[in-house]
């Protein structure tokens, strides 16, 4: 059941913004990076962006808490960052490409960091990927249950 369906009606079919945004929240285990999340996580993502500079990475590694205190971040965000709780960070408006600066600074690959969000060990997650990845069956829609 994976054939391409396309849209019915007007090309794009994305004119009703309320319906469009509601659908983006209907995917199990997924936080689509919407405008609402981008707004909520603005300084979290800008903080992560700062780790693209070696000088900032050095200061972050030397004293993570002190470095975080220089940013306009809620205590929730600071705690989630210190704990490297990436699912929580997604809930707080983080985007994975920004958060990648944090786990890259830790020396983690995308696969290692991404596995921490799935409830699997790195070994289990890698084995799943090597066996063809996670099937979309049953995880396409919360409401539809398909």
């Amino acid at each position, binding site marked *: 059941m*994976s054939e*391409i*369906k*396309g*849209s019915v009606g007007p*090309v*794009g*079919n*994305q004119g009703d913004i309320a319906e*469009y945004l509601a659908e*983006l929240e209907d*995917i*199990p*285990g*997924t*936080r*689509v*990076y*919407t*405008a609402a999340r*981008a707004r909520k*996580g*603005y300084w979290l*993502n*800008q903080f*992560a*962006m700062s*780790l*693209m*500079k070696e000088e900032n*990475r050095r200061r972050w590694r030397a004293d993570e808490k002190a470095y975080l205190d220089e940013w306009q971040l809620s205590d929730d965000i600071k705690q989630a960052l210190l704990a490297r709780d*990436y*699912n929580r960070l*997604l809930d707080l408006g983080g*985007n*994975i*490409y*920004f958060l*990648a*600066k*944090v*786990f*890259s*600074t830790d020396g983690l*690959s*995308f*696969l290692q960091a*991404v*596995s921490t*969000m*799935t409830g699997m060990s790195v070994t289990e997650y890698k084995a799943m*990927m090597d066996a*063809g*990845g*996670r*099937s*979309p069956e049953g*995880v*396409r*829609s919360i409401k539809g249950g398909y």
Partner: protein
Amino acid sequence: MARITAGVGSSHIPLLGVAVDQGKTKDDYFTPIFSGYEWTKEWIKGEKPDVIILVYNDHASAFDANIIPAFAIGTGERYKPADEGWGPRPVPDVIGEPDLGWHIAQSLILDEFDMTIINEMDVDHGLTVPLSMMFGQPEAWPVKVIPLAVNVVTYPVPTGNRCWMLGEAIKRAVESYPEDLNVQIWGTGGMSHQLQGPRAGLINAEWDNAFMDGLIGTSDRNRTIPHIEYLRETGSEGIEMVMWLIMRGALGAETRLLHRHYHVPCSNTAVGHIVLEPVS
């Protein structure tokens, strides 16, 4: 007159860049991935394109959360590889083509695509990994590159249909350039992958292959795929495939398949690669 002579689709997974940079492309894990690019590496030596219009997305490297251009075109003289958190990739600077870049930018605006114009930026794995896949490790890249960055991160991202139309406008822009240049357009990113949340690791080989089928010949069914279908079927980052539709739109009404490759997995991601030429 300048002409678009071919279109290339390719994933731009960062781990592929690591494999090239660290000499691991012949390891057991990477051999089935890189072997699918051997045909293209030979082909492109014969084609000798002058310029690549390289459609990619910036992964929070040149653009932060502050300014989010839907479509941005590079008109700079050169671009350095970005430091994405582990130091810049050891690859040559990317040399731009400002004359053609500005020509395309101006043509697109007059064609009602109001582009963001970028003169200085660093380019991340989204742009440099496809160059490494096609050209290996040269001392200098053998082509000039016009970066074309698409927002596929912050929603709503451009629709697939809009991407296809932008491709059509790029074709018109290139064909109105007087210099005799051999131009290729590459669409990069994808294929199915999800890098976030408990659903991470999603792969949909059947859907990915149907998408590649839809790039060949006269089919234009891919242009009507809504965002939600990419998200449900191919994972949250599978949306990058809309960038392949800019490439496809720029090839005109009909394409011929020259080469095709698909492999799962590379890191979290399905690797897809296709080479098409316009049928005129």
